[in-house]
């Protein structure tokens, strides 16, 4: 006799390494590196994308001044996002699907000289 289908188990959370540099760390308690766990799927059961990670960071790590991190539903101008040492533009930007053990870097561009 076939056993009843088990309820779908909650997917294992994704471990993500975050890094803030070029002055971004000042927004995050002057800490450059964080290792976080984020659900692998959203409340709508879709995969967690970089756009969800950005809002997760705003809601969970950012203490104040969200406008210095996010503007118009993406990172503010002057921040470059790197996914595993590659420009996020080459990885689909906000639509990139987060993988376990990804390293995501938020780096503020420097202008001094």
């Amino acid at each position, binding site marked *: 006799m076939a056993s009843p289908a088990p309820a779908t188990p909650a997917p294992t959370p994704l471990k993500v390494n975050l890094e803030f540099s070029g*002055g971004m760390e000042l927004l995050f308690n002057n800490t450059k590196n964080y290792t976080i766990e984020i659900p692998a799927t959203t409340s709508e059961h879709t995969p967690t994308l970089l756009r969800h990670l950005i809002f997760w960071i705003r809601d969970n790590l950012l203490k104040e001044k969200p406008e*210095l991190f996010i503007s118009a539903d993406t990172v503010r101008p002057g921040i470059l996002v790197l996914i595993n040492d590659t420009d996020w*533009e080459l990885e689909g930007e906000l639509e990139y699907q987060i993988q376990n053990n990804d390293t995501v870097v938020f780096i503020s561009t420097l202008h001094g*000289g």
Partner: protein
Amino acid sequence: MSAQSDVERLAAENAALQTRIQALTKENSRLKAPQTSPPLPDPSPLTAFTQVESLNNPEIARYSRQLLLPEVGVQGQLSLRNASVLVVGAGGLGSPCILYLAAMGVGKIGVIDHDTVEISNLQRQVIHSESRAGLSKARSARLAVHELNSDCHCIAYDLVFDYTVALSVAAEYDVVVDATDNVPTRYLVNDTCVLLGKPLVSASALKLDGQLTVYNYAGGPCYRCLFPVPPPPETVTNCSDGGVLGVVPGILGTLQALEVVKILTGVKAKEAPTLLLFSAFSSPTFRSIKIRGKQAHCAVCGTQPTITELQDYVAFCGSQPTDGPVHLNLLPAGDRITCADYHTLRQTGQPHLLVDVREPVQYDICRLPGSLHVPWRDFAQRVPDILAAREAVSHQPIYIICRLGNDSQEAVLHLRERGVVDAKDIVGGLLEWHQSVDPTFPAY
């Protein structure tokens, strides 16, 4: 005449006098300079720069260490000898870049900078010297190049690199080096290079970090491809506020000279576009990041560019083309007190609470006696401490001071929002205190 218009008239008069003082101070240091400096050379060399077919014997002897490298060889050295490079900015990045380009045998180097050498530059701007304080940085750099390699055809432009001169100056060179220190000039240099089709070697440095990229070269992106929109001005920190370790721009400027060599010898064209990140106290110290190529929708280098001539970069970026201090005006005059008036108040012993909102590293350098230290970054959480300290001086007014008089105004606004109405900021901060009240108080 109303009190309001009186105040406005006095403010205008004050501004005019300040400008006059600045002009006279500059003139004074210019007049002082020649006593210790060698005589000024003509800014443009007497002979025209000419390219050659082959290296002569003195050149072969001088550059033998490079000629021995198969990656350079005679052809590579000849490419350097016949090349011209414009370095925009003779500061922390430009200093080593210009020196190494001259040392390695680049035939023609243009240096454009409108600033004058100050002693506080010398911690990182190693092309200049104490004896050339007060001299134009472009001319000082040219003197250094001439001492190092008198064969180098070096042209000093004692000018602001702005949209009126950018195209005509840069058109004379094969490669442009962005060694500037501010956002509007970085967009200007980029657009100039795209419009002229010149490779751009760009670097920046702040505190302990640096970044390096070659733009507009071999299918790679331009600065706007990566950063189509300038950052909000309040998110930009310059070296005079944030500080910079002297050797950090030195490393980045040296790497810029290397990138120039790679472009001139042709090896750079084979590399995929990268952004090099440097972080002096992190591990690893260097990281190379693969970046996007030229963007089809880029406003200046894309397939249908909307920028076809240079524009107003100060308006575009909302910030000035300088890394000097910014003086905000956030409060009405009635909510502020001048250093002179605050000095009188201290001398007459009027009870008050002085709050210093600078960063701890700055508070360690110098402070006025009797101040309560509450860094602006912790200010919101520590308002109760301030109110408690103020009760100790029987509810007397609060005066807030910082380095330049900007954060102090923000702090007064913050207290207003929290219902504290009798706080004032001290106009111009401790730098102004040094200038108008106590010259023995350290300036930094």
